């Protein structure tokens, strides 16, 4: 496998393609309304009820069925909180409601990294420079080599091992990544601003860690240890899940990467093309889509990062049809296949490769 240059359609087609996608976008914006608002509030209420239920059950988790039920509820609550709520609200997908309680400027999530830091690295850097080697730090999260356009270094030989360690500790990985220590080393970020970011991270992390590993276990009294283990399990399950969905949305085999030269002077249509070719979908049922934060529709998310997530499922067939019409690959598959393919890529690029096309 080699990295191929981005497929460029002829200029007029490219323009037409962009216009068709813009039309989908404006149709969704015009249709947003009561039902969408009801949807996000239902997810919020469900998440909070599950979290409260999970915490209560874990308070009496000396009783094993309570442990199982509590851990399951808390795991699902944390997954919903991160994926369908945190990720999407912080993208500004729900800002149109004008609700200060559900707004990208005010929302904070149950994740070690503060919302503000994440919005910068994710919404700004990643979504602007999707899969551009050297610009998109998410392309390998600094430590992985995910494209033949990235230089092979000896440390990449052990990247399958990094991935095994990263998955259960994903929120720690993201928190460190959001501090951008690599940017300080490269001189793109000052020590002073690193210190400020570190202070923000430590404050946030202290609250999150105190809650899960001290306060709730202490309140559980005799159930201290099972409660603590339940919380640890829920966080780990959430981390494994988030890691799986995010890696499967970006790194299955055929997902393309781009060079800085190829994106210079990019048109709106070309921008859409890059977003679509740089992402991969995961097939599944409605519950699977909600639990993945609709990032199972990663292609639609990357084309329209600020449209409400509950709309991706309905526009996905149209985006796919357009891709077929214009001969653009639309990468999708069931979770097991995308997962296997992602691992294939991690293994493949852990070895030096011969670049056939540059």
């Amino acid at each position: 496998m080699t990295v191929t240059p981005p497929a460029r359609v002829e200029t007029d087609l490219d323009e037409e393609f962009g216009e068709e996608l813009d039309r989908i976008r404006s149709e969704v914006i015009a249709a947003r309304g009561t039902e969408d608002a009801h949807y996000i509030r239902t997810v919020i209420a469900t998440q909070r009820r599950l979290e409260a239920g999970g915490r209560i059950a874990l308070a009496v988790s000396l009783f094993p069925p309570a442990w199982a039920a509590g851990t399951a509820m808390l795991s699902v609550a944390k997954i919903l909180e991160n994926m369908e709520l945190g990720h999407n609200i912080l993208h500004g997908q729900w800002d149109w409601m004008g609700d200060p309680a559900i707004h990208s400027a005010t929302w904070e999530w149950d994740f070690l990294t503060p919302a503000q830091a994440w919005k910068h690295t994710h919404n700004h850097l990643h979504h602007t420079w999707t899969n551009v080697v050297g610009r998109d730090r998410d392309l390998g999260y600094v430590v992985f080599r995910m494209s033949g356009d990235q230089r092979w270094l000896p440390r990449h030989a052990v990247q399958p091992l990094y991935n095994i360690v990263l998955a259960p500790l994903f929120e720690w990985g993201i928190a460190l990544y959001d501090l951008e220590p690599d940017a300080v080393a490269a001189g793109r970020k000052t020590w002073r601003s690193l210190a400020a970011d570190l202070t923000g991270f430590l404050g946030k992390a202290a609250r999150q860690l105190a809650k899960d590993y001290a306060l709730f276990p202490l309140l559980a009294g005799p159930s201290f240890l099972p409660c603590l283990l339940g919380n640890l399990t829920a966080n780990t399950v959430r981390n494994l899940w988030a890691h799986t969905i995010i890696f499967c949305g970006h790194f299955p085999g055929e997902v393309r990467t781009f060079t800085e030269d190829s994106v210079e002077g990019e048109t709106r249509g070309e921008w859409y093309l890059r977003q679509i070719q740089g992402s991969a979908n995961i097939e599944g049922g409605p519950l699977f889509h909600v639990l993945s934060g609709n990032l199972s529709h990663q292609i639609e998310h990357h084309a329209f990062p600020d449209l409400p997530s509950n709309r991706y499922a309905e526009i996905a067939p149209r985006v796919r049809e357009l891709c077929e019409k214009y001969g653009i690959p639309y990468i999708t598959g069931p979770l097991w296949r995308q997962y296997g393919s992602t691992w294939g890529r991690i293994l493949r690029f852990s070895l030096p490769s011969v670049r056939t096309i540059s």
Partner: protein
Amino acid sequence: MPAIPALASRLLTVASWLASPHTPDDYLGLIDPLLGARCPVGRVTAVTPETPDAATLTIRPGRGWSGHIAGQYLPIGVEMDGVWHWRTYSLTSVPGRRDGLLTITVKAAPGGTASPQLAHRTPPGTVLRLGPAQGDFVLPGRLPPRMLWVTAGSGITPVMGMLRTLVLRPPPHPHVVLVHSAPTARDSIFRSELDAARQRLAWLDYRERHTRHDGRLAPQDLERLCPDWRERETWACGPAALLDVVERHWRREKPARRLHVERFRLTPVLPRIREAASRSPVVFTRTGTEVAADPASPLLVVGESAGVPMRYGCRRGICFGCLTPLRYGRVRDLRTGELHQGSGQLIQTCVSAAAGPLALDA
């Protein structure tokens, strides 16, 4: 007893750590929205028609409501098609009522968005967002012996809140002249209650004027309706045309007494710079910078080239890193042509351009 609030506040602090990164309110609000204090709400308990186009909404406020002074207005958030719209209405209820209820009286503006919904299509049980009561058009703590209230249309509402409050005060009451204008008797809000009050209260002199028949209130009418107007502390509320007349008249006559004016719509302070019609003056309120912006330049670029420190992100409308509150004016989304307006609305400066004079909180 003081041990209990101290304990309660300590418990809330602990609970806030447990609910982190949210607040205990977010969970209480699931049981009943009125239990949440972070975004105060109220539930409509009754809707009473007043005139063909005005209705009184009785509202039970939730835990976050912190009270008001007679005469103040209340920001109300009403949800329509999933979007919260904010409007302000004068409180017409007496502060600190025993049943804890509030009332506002809403006149449906022809062609309006939120007011027809509130006046005509708000079933009891509807939950509304409540902002904090605001405004200094209020009944003073120490009452002057003689007062004059000049109102027109729905300008009667804050004065109604003051009157109802005065009625409940122990005597002696100040002498009050209320001169109210409405197009016809049928359009006169609170007419029967005011008529009854005039007959019952020796200290209230209620004068109603029907502008469709008698014409608009002019300064000379005031001489006739209230000859001692110079000696009275005056409160005026109504359409801008009436208030302009009143303010001019008071300035000209220089009466010793103070004049209190309540305008429902603030007249924005426009930037001083005026250039070619295609360019709009933009004020950055924090830095005090004023520049002219053309309708095609993103406000982020406009601000940056004028040396204003602006929040920025992707510069292409994706990341919402540049959200900046609009103070007044209108902006156009360069991507969709959609117009955004409204004080306090957060706009994406990287993809929004000026659509007329505006001010940004930057």
